[in-house]
């Protein structure tokens, strides 16, 4: 009893971690299920059918491919634009800096339905047909602010003396930027890009407002499936995504740990 009281915070914390992880475990377990009907809600028996045939449901791999392509382009563009904005805001004093910061913050404080529907009204007013291009415009928009915030935090944490040292050693501004500043900011840019990709890949609400029947992304496919019947392949892809994320995040934390130890 005394032990329980001493470790109350830890026990509560681990219970919360279970709450956080149980749905992922359910997704993994049910990827090996062989359901009787259209819905994969009830455990029937063990099977690897879905794993050996991940594209077995019509449309699933097309939607996955489209999501990966959109995610890739949205990540590249938003990371590039966002990093430039982050350098401007993090490194320079200029007129309109406060309103720039507000403009960067506002999209993050806007509910997704509002952002998606407002873009839809713009596209309607301009007579632009929804499709892959409109989805891309929307994704770059909502990824941008998150990239700016992530990269800006990294820039703010840099030691300005390192750049001064480079300048003292007769590096010109360009050399200083490429050899000193950029490698130091790189982890922030990588984190921003990773965040942008996962936001783009996972978005349903905003995408749904700006998509057409011929541009079905993976989340839209899952949503449609939830109304008609959920194929086991959804769980297979969900499992692969979870494992990929686990590996990526773990590698990232390993690298930053090693760097921190090397610096210490």
């Amino acid at each position: 009893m005394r032990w329980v009281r001493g470790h109350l915070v830890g026990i509560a914390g681990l219970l919360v971690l279970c709450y956080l992880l149980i749905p992922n475990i359910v997704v993994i377990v049910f990827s090996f299920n062989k359901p009787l009907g259209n819905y994969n809600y009830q455990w029937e028996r063990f099977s690897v059918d879905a794993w050996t045939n991940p594209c077995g449901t019509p449309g699933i791999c097309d939607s996955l491919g489209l999501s990966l392509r959109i995610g890739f382009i949205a990540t590249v563009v938003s990371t590039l634009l966002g990093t430039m904005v982050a350098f401007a805001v993090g490194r320079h004093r200029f007129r309109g800096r406060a309103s720039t910061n507000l403009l960067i913050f506002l999209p993050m404080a806007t509910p997704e339905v509002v952002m998606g529907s407002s873009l839809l009204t713009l596209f309607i007013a301009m007579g632009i047909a929804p499709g892959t291009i409109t989805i891309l415009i929307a994704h770059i928009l909502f990824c941008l602010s998150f990239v700016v915030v992530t990269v800006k935090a990294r820039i703010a944490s840099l030691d300005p003396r390192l750049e001064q040292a480079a300048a003292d050693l007769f590096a010109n501004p360009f050399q200083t930027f490429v050899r000193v500043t950029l490698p130091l900011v790189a982890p922030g840019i990588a984190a921003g890009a990773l965040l942008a990709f996962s936001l783009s890949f996972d978005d349903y609400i905003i995408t749904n407002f700006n998509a057409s029947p011929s541009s079905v992304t993976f989340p839209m496919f899952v949503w449609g499936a939830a109304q008609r019947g959920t194929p086991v392949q959804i769980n297979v892809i969900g499992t692969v995504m979870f494992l990929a994320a686990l590996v990526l995040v773990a590698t990232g934390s390993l690298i930053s740990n090693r760097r921190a130890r090397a610096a210490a």
Partner: protein
Amino acid sequence: MSGQLADVAPTALRPRRAGLNYTPYLLLLPGLAWLVVFFVVPMLSLASQSLQTGTVDSGYVLTWHFQTYVDALSQFWPHFLRSIAFAGTATVLTLLLAYPLAYFMAHKSGRWKNILLVLVIAPFFTSFLIRTLAWQIILTDNGPVAGLARSTHLTNLLQWVQLTNNDSLMNSRFAVICGLTYNFLPFMILPLYANLERLDHSLVEAAGDLYATPIQTFWRVIWPLSLPGVVGGTLLTFIPAAGDFINSQLLGNTQTVMIGQVIDSQFLRIQDYATAASLSFVLMLIIVVIVAVYVRRAGTEELV
């Protein structure tokens, strides 16, 4: 001091410094242009759309028809209230759940810290929809969770407080709040963790040395210092939760319809663009007001 250094700096550097002033604007140009064209202009277009009359087929004309707002609000105010109530409840629950985990990760986990951090972040990088669908499996009528809830009479309690309608857990207010709490939990844990990690643990020890009980230490030392993390986390949870309709659609019933669901169906199914745009604009206003009031109050509390 720095002013003196600038005076000593070689004059040859000065012209380039003046030239550098254009750099921030050049760096900002593409990003800010994107934000203005695809965020600010759409907001104006949304406001304009809400005051237009017409139909999808015949086209819309701006008539400053404010009656749309009156009609839309008188019909859909329960959905607004419900969204704020659900999002508020979920935010309080995520705070209660996230605090012990974030504190444990920051101060008690030792060498497990990085593993825990990976386990908190990784689910956040996996599909939101697939994880929400998993709750349908977890809460299903003949599953172990529902069985346990029935045998412990938890279902009766939930029914009594009207979180469920019968002895099933799915398709109820309970399921929607459970899903919202789950989905936005990482948004609360991460800012809290970032804040609590910077908390100097010797302050907690000092409070103990001065005979503060653990509860006093928490309320007088830890909680006030963690307020910035609490404010950040509650905003990151409340705002998306208030506009969300994935949870209420997949886990709820006709009595749990949230405002996001109404906006979505008015726009895409019913195609009443004026009503949909007015609801969307009102939601944005409500969020801005709530956030402004909350941030101001949290700010003054911090000063006290």
